[in-house]
């Protein structure tokens, strides 16, 4: 079975490493990006099956990432947003721009895995 490509954009290295480990264990090829620039660079060269991105990132926020993917790349790649608690406004903006789902911190890696699977199944 071919593994799905997943782009994980998270600036917190520890959490990114943990989620990376969990998602890889869940059967995904995970590409880690520590900030928005990395995401942009990666998206120029490859097209992941799904994007999991933190909202608050240096250089290129999650909102901008969604805008970039939806309006400039004109791509319908599923995007799951990770946001901090009490950041409802950003979440709403993300949904308005075309985010597919969101998960709030503190993150349960198992829950994230389920949501990623669900979004890919929708596709």
């Amino acid at each position: 079975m071919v593994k799905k490509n997943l782009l994980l954009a998270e600036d917190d290295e520890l959490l990114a490493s943990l989620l990376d480990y969990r998602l890889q264990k869940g059967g995904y090829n995970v590409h880690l990006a520590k900030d928005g620039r990395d995401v942009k660079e990666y998206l120029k060269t490859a097209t992941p099956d799904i994007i999991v991105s933190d909202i608050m990132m240096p250089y290129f926020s999650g909102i901008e990432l969604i805008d970039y993917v939806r309006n400039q790349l004109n791509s319908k790649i599923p995007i799951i947003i990770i946001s901090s608690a009490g950041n409802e406004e950003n979440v709403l903006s993300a949904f308005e721009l075309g985010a597919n789902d969101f998960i709030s911190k503190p993150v349960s890696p198992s829950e994230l895995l389920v949501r990623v699977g669900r979004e890919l199944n929708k596709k």
Partner: protein
Amino acid sequence: MLISAPKIHTDLLWDLTILFSGLGILFFAFVFIFRNRLSAKRSKVSHQKKILAPIISNFLFYETDSTKEENYEYIKLKIEIRDLLKSPFSRLVLTEILLDLQKDLSGDSRNRLYKLYQDLELHLDAFKKLKSWRWELVSKGILELAQMRVLVAYGFIKKFINDKRGVVRKQAQIATVTLKHEGIAYFLDTTRYGISEWQQLKLLDVLRNFEDFSPPRFKAWLTSKNRDVVLFALRLIKHYNQNDANKSMIELVKHRNDQIKSEAIQCIKDFGVFEALYTLKSVFRNSKVDIKLQILDTISSLGKEEDLEFLQTIVNKESNFLVKSKAISTINAIAPETFIPTEGIDKNIATKNFENNVEDNSTQLSEVMNNNELNKDDGLPASDHEEDTLDIQDHLDPEFEDEIIFDLCFMEELDDILTEFNELDKEVDYLPLNFLPLVSEEEELKSNTDPKTDENSDVERKEILKEESFKEELEAILDKIKTHNTDNVVEGEKDSDLEFLPFVVETNVEEKSEDLVETDNENILAIEVNEEEVIQEEGIANLHKKFLEVDCLPKQELESSDTIAQKSMDWMAYVNESQGSGNNPQSTALDESARYDNSAGDDNKDDNSIPAFYGFSIFQELFRTCDTESKLILLDEILAVGDEKEVHFLKTLLDDRNKKVSAKAELILKELQNLLTPEMPDETTMEQITTNAQGVENPYSNEEEVNVISSLNKSSEGFTDIKEENMMPLEYCFLDDSTSEHDNYQKHLFELDFELMDTALEVIKTGLQLDETEKEENDKEEDIIFGSLLRNLILLPKKLKEKFNG
């Protein structure tokens, strides 16, 4: 004596230089080393985190049903981490990683993290910290143990609940409550120190985030000796809705501490403890204002009719406004509408039964309008208007109340304006709005002059009201204003040749207005008056037409009378533009002359009432405001630039109270007359004209006109000769620059018209046989009327705009 420079010890200077340089170098070296150490440590931690992160991930997500390879990997990593943990630095980094991760993770992963923390025996380091003498380390140790949910630490931590060190004590309180569900009970039982508001909030937050938490019955702590514990217990009771402590709460209403008392009253209100009412009433008298208000608030939600007597006594006896007001509102809450508003109510207004007067608001409003009109005609005082409107306001439908009140106010304002106009009408037979550029509105104005339409609009005004009533009335009133205006303008348009005729005042207006009131049929009379005006003005028009035919100028060079009138209107437009564009200092005089020109169309209805009018001297207005010296200077100026208008003005100055002014006026008058005499029309000629005019009933009959015009030609020639020196009448002197583009011929024409106009007036006046004294009196009256009219007219558009803009 020579001053010698102080001796400087260069060696000492060198020593100091070396010392400070050394200190500087040391400082920079210290900063450099310290920063390097920090950055090295940071990079070391970062490197260690990169090594440890995958290991931790592996440990966290290890599952027993993993493959052999995964199991092998797991065991290998466990051995590796045991080696790493021998190093305190690695332990420190690992603890830091786990503390960071527990914030970002939830659910099962977090529980595994807690387990890993204890499996790796990192909590032992935290226990060591608890034994430290440094309060920050102790606090850090407590926090770490509480965050990683080390339940075994509960016994150790709870000892710090009453620690002398505030930070440690507070940290221990939160940790005790966090670690075990019974921690809150232990804390409330044992704490001896006060609990700050912030601390209470933090503890409540911890309790709220508990899963499967069954709170203890907090009424147990209402008997605590610690006031903060009682207060916190009351708040917890309220938070968890524990309404089994009513008696305790009622007792706490009597507490000396206002905070506890307030919290207890709040609980009583929230839980609806009716049996507390008696206690509340008994403590009311000795309580502070805030507590009194709170008690009254509670009584308003729990009280019954039995409590009204108590509340009434508060209303009667209480001096504090807030409490008294609250008591009244409480009474109204228990027994609605017991107290009704009394402040600012006009008791003089007789309240009528609204249902008996169910007539449409529009009818009422039309009545108001009619009343206003009648009052206006009857000359009733303004207070009567106000009373009427007030009475009617009582019967207005609330739905349209605001709108109608606004309408009434607005209508009153408009009525005021109209009253001003009517007052002016009593003095002058028309509303001199001719300065307005109405030429383009010819058709509208003609339609407005139709009295039938006005009559119809009056009828409709009574019928159509409600929502559109305001517009209708406004339009009707504006029509009324226009009617005044258009009566003049349209006539002026019909007889456009006469536009340059002077402004004439009718003296029989009062009689006419009385007739109008008596007959109570304004419109019909208006038609009659208009017809009379038209007939009379046709006569004047014919006169002028003939006059133009016999004009001394060749026909091909002479512009038609229409063109002249158009020119006059062009000047009007210029006047209006200049008036609107800014503060043109000459605009007043120009304005006056423009009005002067246009008022020609508004010629008199009654020939006998035509007063003498020689033109308006611009010096007249200046004389009103200036002092004696200025007047003397102005008199000199009159001699320099004056013409026949100034002659008449100077004559009025002969009777001036100031002898200097009158003497100089006399002198100037003589000199001016000498200057003007050779060019003035011959007295005999004027007399001939007068006799000719007297000889016939109709002064405008064709034969007479020919005579008059022939004599006028002579006089006009004289005038043109004069004006070849000055070229223009005085009021147009300032237009020289603006009219320089016109050739001399045009100037001549323009000038001729105005001068002819004056002479024509002279003829009419002499025909009416007005003696000199009457003329002077009329002059004075005209001046006064003119002055006030001009001021009003200048202000009128502004006033109207203001009124329309509300």
